């Protein structure tokens, strides 16, 4: 068997087609250089099956294997799934600590410390008012001052308590809206399940659905910010996704199992929200401590103000001044100049109510700082892993330009090969055996 006459043309053609496809892929990469979640793709080229030239004929000499050009075997996306898993774990941690830092910062802002209008300063003004009253126990203005300072203090406590309550309520609402029927969990899960179905079909048809895989990976990244996820790839190309500490997988093939119950151990934003607003969470504990400060304040003042309780209520939200200026007690005796009660109450400054409050502020500050530090650490890790992932999968325009030039040149060369073949065939067909014609 000899070499088919037109074989060279076929070989050149395969080169033209393959280089063209490679240029198309480079174009696709460049077009998606800024697409979120896109992985760069490569046209994987392979030399065609060679033509076996047997060593029988005079024409072919010793025989051998003649190459027949190239074909594009597949378009592969360049991606490291191990980095994906790492990224998602860290991303859950980051969005958890970010949510925590955000909520705690709101709580910290509610306390409005250090300032001249926070509870600490109101407490100080309250004690100072009693001290003034001790100096002029018969002064109506001083009694008015004590009642006014008490009311201001009670209303500030009430305000802070209400703000803490609001932050807690809003966090609960946020959780409810994220996990609700129109929430992000349901939305992402539905899209992933749908992509699972499409990817399965494409893989059954022997295609590599790169762009669908990218989209699914991007959705999984986003899902990982809501709670910790584990992705198990099935042989049929679908992903089974377990979500937080839900008992059943969130996504199995094309099925979505939602709603399910999560706890604070779910990780991510949802876990952080549950942890903060739970009965043992930071917000509830701030509220409890603030109530204890209010109760302590009311208890210690009322104990000394024996005529009638000065404060009513025993929580930050219910504390109120229960006396009129005329009912303010300055002395344990009837004598108008007595000031022992006023002095004793003024001496409560720096006592357990003040100490309880400043300890609370220290704890709030500590919690916020810890959450912020954690967020900064997680951010650094996520950025580092994100960069590693980008380093593998991201589009480099310089690289694509270089590839573009080499594919373009190869295309031009294949075309030149074809021209050479053509001129050979021209010689063979039109100019051979024409002697004497």
């Amino acid at each position: 068997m000899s070499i088919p006459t037109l074989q060279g043309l076929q070989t050149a053609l395969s080169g033209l087609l393959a280089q063209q496809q490679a240029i198309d892929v480079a174009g696709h990469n460049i077009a998606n250089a800024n697409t979120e979640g896109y992985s760069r793709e490569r046209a994987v080229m392979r030399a065609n099956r060679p033509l076996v030239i047997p060593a029988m004929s005079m024409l072919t000499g010793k025989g051998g294997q003649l190459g027949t050009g190239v074909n594009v075997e597949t378009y592969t996306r360049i991606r490291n799934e191990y980095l994906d898993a790492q990224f998602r774990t860290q991303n859950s941690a980051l969005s958890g600590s970010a949510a925590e830092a955000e909520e705690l910062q709101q709580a910290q802002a509610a306390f409005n410390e250090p300032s001249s209008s926070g509870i600490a300063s109101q407490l100080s003004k309250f004690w100072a008012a009693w001290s003034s009253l001790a100096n002029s126990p018969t002064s109506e203005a001083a009694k008015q001052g004590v009642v006014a300072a008490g009311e201001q203090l009670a209303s500030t406590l009430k305000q802070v308590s209400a703000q803490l309550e609001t932050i807690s309520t809003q966090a609960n609402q946020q959780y409810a809206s994220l996990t609700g029927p129109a929430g992000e969990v349901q939305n992402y899960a539905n899209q992933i399940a749908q992509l699972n179905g499409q990817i399965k079909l494409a893989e059954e048809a022997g295609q590599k659905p790169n762009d669908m895989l990218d989209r699914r990976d991007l959705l999984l990244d986003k899902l990982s910010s809501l709670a910790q996820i584990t992705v198990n790839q099935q042989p049929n190309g679908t992903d089974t996704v377990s979500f937080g500490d839900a008992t059943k997988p969130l996504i199995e093939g094309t099925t979505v199992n939602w709603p399910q119950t999560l706890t604070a151990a779910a990780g991510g934003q949802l876990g952080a929200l549950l942890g903060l607003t739970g009965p043992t969470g930071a917000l509830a504990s701030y509220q409890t401590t603030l109530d204890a400060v209010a109760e302590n304040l009311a208890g210690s003042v009322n104990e000394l103000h024996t005529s009638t309780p000065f404060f009513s209520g025993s929580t930050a939200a219910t504390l109120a001044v229960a006396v009129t200026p005329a009912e303010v007690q300055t002395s344990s005796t009837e004598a108008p100049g007595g000031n022992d009660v006023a002095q004793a109450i003024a001496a409560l400054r720096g006592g357990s109510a003040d100490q309880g409050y400043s300890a609370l502020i220290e704890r709030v500050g500590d919690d916020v700082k810890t959450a912020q530090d954690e967020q900064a650490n997680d951010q650094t890790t996520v950025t580092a892993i994100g960069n590693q992932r980008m380093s593998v999968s991201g589009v480099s325009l310089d690289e694509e330009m270089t590839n573009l030039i080499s594919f373009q040149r190869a295309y031009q060369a294949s075309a030149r090969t074809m021209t050479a073949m053509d001129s050979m065939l021209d010689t063979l067909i039109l100019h051979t055996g024409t002697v004497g014609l």
Partner: protein
Amino acid sequence: MSNRIATAMVSSSTLNDINSALSALQRSSNELSSGRTILQPSDNPYGASHAIDLQSQLDGLGAYATNVQDAISWENAAGGAMTNMSSVVQRVRELLVQASNGTFSQSSLNSIATEVAQLTETIKQDANTQYAGQYVFAGTLTTTRPYQPGAEDEYQGNVASISRAIGPGASVTINTDISSLLGNGSGAKDGKLLDTLRTISEHLLSGTPEGRAALNTTDLKAIDASLETLTQLQATAGSMTNQLQAASSRIEDLETSIAKTLSNTQDADIAKTTIAFSNQQAAYEAALRAGASIVQESLLNFLR
């Protein structure tokens, strides 16, 4: 970071760097404009809580300082009244010595008696001295006049003490029990100053030899005893004033030192922060400049 650099990485990491440079710059600028290093408890949790405690202590010291000033003013009012009383009693004693030398006619004695009666009223007026609307010699019945003008000499106040807190757990009694000097008058026959003065008047007016004789003996002795008591009361009040002044300067020292600690805890070190601010400004500008030139570069610039 590995060797391969994707184009998007350059812009995103440049942006990150610019952002972190800007946020450091903003932090310093906040510290400079507010003058504080602790803007929120999370900036320094222990420092924030410490600052709250220190501020409350400082406010408390301010209240003690007010108390001390108030007590000193009270003591000044009471002290002035007692000085007046002392000169009045001295005058009575002089009159007594004059009257008892036996050369005066009864009409002269009568006019001395009139003066003694006026001086008695003066002493009662001094006993009714007020400070900030409160009778300083009425015990805790500060709205009641201790002695009614006129013939009635009974003490209307009580003997309870009034105190001012001048430090944590420290208080001083600021009032003087004037009834221990003045007593309840002739009705009570207690031998105190008012009783003595009324008796002297009686003796002056009596015109009897026994009356005259008593002026030189029992009356003079009683006046001397009252002067003694008054001097003691003045000494006690004086030492109280000294104690208050000592407390005042101690409170000022404490205020200074706590204010300094508070400032060290929460105030920005302006020199240090200004230098940090300039450094961060330079870093931010460098980041912007680098970003502007790196992000623009590409192979595309060099291809035909």
